[in-house]
């Protein structure tokens, strides 16, 4: 989890080093606000002009490409990296009682790579898409 005011670069490092699909963003009181997927971090770090004209991505060498992405993230907060509020992802959340299918349905509907498990503002943890798939596949194995 990261806070809205945390450094965006630190959030990117957390996603990269722990190989997570994204992180849950919480407000000052620790309440979950939204999910920051790795794809959104990339979207923010890749310059808009390269997204407009993808052929420009090829004119950078690897070091130059990494530098330009880092430059866009440095000095930014997590809040700045998030999409504007009206376009922000709905918080994917289920209660601790939710079944595997409920989790899967919520993730599919919101197209999110992770989901927050929470009751009464208390966060129990996070379920990732890969972990959920692992549970589903293992559950079906004995009958296969």
């Amino acid at each position, binding site marked *: 989890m990261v806070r809205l005011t945390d450094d965006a670069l630190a959030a990117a490092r957390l996603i990269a080093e722990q190989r997570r699909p994204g992180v849950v963003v919480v407000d000052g009181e620790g309440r979950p606000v939204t999910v920051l997927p790795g794809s959104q971090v990339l979207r923010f770090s890749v*310059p*808009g*002009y*390269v997204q*407009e*004209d993808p*052929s*420009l991505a*090829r*004119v*950078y*060498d690897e070091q*130059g490409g990494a530098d*330009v992405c880092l430059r866009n993230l440095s000095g930014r907060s997590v809040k700045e990296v998030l999409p504007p509020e009206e376009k922000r992802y709905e918080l994917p959340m289920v209660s601790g009682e939710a079944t595997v299918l409920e989790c899967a349905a919520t993730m599919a509907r919101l197209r999110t790579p992770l989901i927050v498990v929470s009751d009464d503002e208390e966060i129990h943890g996070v379920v990732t898409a890969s972990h959920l798939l692992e549970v589903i596949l293992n559950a079906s194995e004995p009958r296969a």
Partner: protein
Amino acid sequence: MTVSQVLSVVVFVGAYVLIATERVHRVAAALGGAALMLALGLTDGETAFHSLDAGVDWNVVFLLLGMMIIVGVIKQTGLFEYLAIAAAKRAGGRPYAMLVMLVVITAVASAALDNVTTVLLIAPVTFLVCDRLGLNPIPFLIAEVMASNIGGTATLIGDPPNIIIASRSGLSFNDFLVHLAPFVVVLMAVFVVVCRWLFRDAFRYDEKRVAEVMALSEREAIRDRTLLVQSLVVLALVLTGFVLHSTLHVDPSVVALLGAGLLVLVSKVTTEQAIADVEWETLVFFMGLFVMVGALVKTGVIGEVSRALADAVGGEPLLAVMALLVISALLSAIVDNIPYVATMSPIVGELVAAQGGTPQAESLWWSLALGADLGGNATAVGASANVVVLGLAARNGTPISFWQFTRYGIVVAGLSILLAAPYLWLRYFLLA
């Protein structure tokens, strides 16, 4: 005035106001106006679709379609990105030298391609080189879009108003080259010098960051070398066809369609990719406009306006040329120049005919083209390319306000008209 004349003027003015104020989409306004003209019997299907004088000008529609297909394919080659990065490197990262090269590339490209496409291609690479050098991209973008509007004035295919003028007047591609291109070259030279003063605060840079530009590899921007060669060969053939069209007795629209067909045939581009960049909305907008203006012709409104204007300036052709230049520039600064030129073309055609079609009378066409094309630089909404660049700048986090653009635009458009007036006077009156 007859009832049909009053009705046609009311429908036309209503649609024009909707287009100018953008209260409804311009295509809806033009099509709605055309539908009303047909429904009220102010024009008919035969006239609207088959009349050369009062119907849809299919030469304009198909010339635009052909060029849009060709441009859509060229866009996929990465040629512009290559040229712009190579120019920035050749300029050694020095901002003013870079700006000069970028505006010259933009102006030359705009003479052969449409202005909106040109700025769409040049803007992203401008952001890139400015980002590398830590420069504010806004002065570069404003200079480029103005260069695009100036460069587009030089040729028959450079700006949609010129296409309309060519079709209505019967003037050839070479006529535009001979009458407008020399002036545009001079204007570009003046513009480049003026940019040094206009954007003087934008040229401070950190020399240490030049290495970041020099590290860019322009060759990697070329996505498909074979397609690049094919596109350039076809473009060269099309331009040759335009130059020779009056000798070969082939309309420019046919040349453009043949070029588009040839390019799709010889390249591996799919039909879907080839037509992906066709602006169907623009083509439909043109059709609606032509039907509306055609109704004004059919009901005799255009004829009456032309006669009134001819009476007003009958003995003074120079006054007519200067008035048309200034009025066209002023109106094009605040409303879309395409409907303006579509409306004025039949009027100017009748004025030229009334004056016996002399070179002095024909200079009315050049006055209309220069006023309408160059007046678009005056404000942020004066030309489609201006609006597109403002949108791109906002999306990239460097918004350009209306007044930020306009304070430069008024200087450049004003200067352009101040230079165009003596050019028209010298060439068509004093030295004629």
